[in-house]
């Protein structure tokens, strides 16, 4: 049995917010693929749970009249991967979520949980940064919207306050229309593994030149990051060997890889540079195929 000491099955979003606000130790449980693993390991930080699995309104995936795409916080990885809207407009999400765990985990795990648990290695974090997700949050003071930029504040930490519930992600049309985006995950195994480094590229081209490049990494710093130096260094340039060289040089100032048992700092930096080059080249090739 899991060492759960207090359990509240939320009947509405407001009820969940109140239950979380009333107990400073209360944590949200959604898909359970992280929380139940931690409880199994005896982690008492998760002994008081607010279960949001009854909030079916948080499962919805839809597009509004203005083209904004909404992904409910409780939609599972599999539901998102198999959704036509997501496959059509934001394929990098499909690609990223497909690298998480195995089928059983993806059938339960939610993208909401993957972002809100603040994991530095979250596979959906690169897609969130490239498509610049907005997070629709209900809190004690009502609804608010936070950008994914700056949402992660440290390993396992986010802007979420006690009493906050993520309701949905919103992706605005300028952040996905015409964006060639892809995710690369470097891990020791092809499945059921945590990223050593994850790299997301989002490219828009103006003729032969880079109009905007968005470059994002996981596990390259204490939070998932965008690489502003590298992005600026290659703007308005054609994708040539020289550009790729500029990219990797500028990149060094954006990342802060760490030393850990999974990989050394130097090795991580090598992977980071390699994935950045490969990602930009692949995105440019996607552009060539389109034209």
């Amino acid at each position, binding site marked *: *049995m*899991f*060492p*759960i*000491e*207090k*359990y509240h*099955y939320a009947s509405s979003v407001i009820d969940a917010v109140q239950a979380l606000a009333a107990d400073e130790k209360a944590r949200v*449980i959604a898909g*359970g*693929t992280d929380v*139940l*693993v931690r409880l*199994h*390991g005896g982690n008492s930080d998760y002994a008081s749970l607010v*279960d949001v*699995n009854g909030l079916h309104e948080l499962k919805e995936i839809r597009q509004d009249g203005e083209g904004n795409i909404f992904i409910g916080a409780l939609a599972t990885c*599999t539901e998102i991967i198999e959704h036509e809207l997501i496959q059509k407009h934001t394929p990098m999400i499909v690609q990223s979520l497909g690298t998480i*765990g*195995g*089928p*059983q*985990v993806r*059938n*339960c795990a939610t993208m909401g949980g993957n972002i809100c648990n603040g994991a530095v290695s979250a596979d959906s974090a690169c897609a969130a940064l490239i498509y610049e997700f907005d997070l629709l949050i209900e809190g004690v003071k009502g609804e608010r919207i936070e950008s994914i930029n700056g949402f992660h504040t440290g390993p396992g930490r986010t802007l979420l306050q006690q009493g906050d519930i993520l309701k949905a992600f919103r992706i605005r049309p300028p952040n996905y229309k015409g964006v060639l985006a892809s995710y690369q995950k470097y891990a020791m195994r*092809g*499945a*059921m593994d945590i990223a050593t480094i994850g790299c997301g590229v989002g490219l828009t081209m103006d003729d032969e030149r880079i109009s905007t490049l968005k470059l994002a990494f996981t596990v390259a710093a204490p939070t998932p990051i965008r690489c502003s130096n590298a992005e600026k260094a290659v703007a308005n340039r054609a994708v040539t060997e020289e550009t790729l060289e500029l990219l990797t040089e500028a990149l060094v100032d954006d990342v802060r890889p760490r030393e850990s048992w999974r990989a050394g700092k130097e090795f991580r930096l090598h992977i980071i540079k390699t994935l950045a080059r490969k990602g930009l080249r692949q995105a440019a090739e996607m552009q060539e195929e389109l034209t």
Partner: protein
Amino acid sequence: MISRMDISLSINSRPYELDVDVRKSLMDVLRELGYTSVKHGCGVGECGACTVLVDDVAVDSCLYLAVWAKGRNVRTVEGECRDGKLSAVQEAYVEEGAVQCGFCTPGLIMSSTSFIEKNSGTRPSREEIAKGHAGNLCRCTGYQTIINAVENAIKK
């Protein structure tokens, strides 16, 4: 403050009304009810030995609170054999010799069943089959006979 919940669910289409301790996983409850094909392997969603289908979706029942099964139909290997006849997947596992020690087999049978139902009418590659079974570990077979069994079952 420990709570319990009354839930109704069906297991292999047989209805149950249960008073469930919220701390229990679906795996715990299924095993207590005698569905011991559901194996307790790693307990953290890595080995897949506890795989069952909840409304036809494969889940690790060790990482699934029993109360979440409320109103749903849970399928285990016990229900796949009907009127003394093995399912196509079970038969294919026997024919291909995809079983050695057998501990992972019930979970794998459920993963294969879900994979085949999901991919009906298609011819997945061996790599796609492997990817579709990435959540199940087997330390005996080396997986090749399992992939053979899935290919065989698809043809049935």
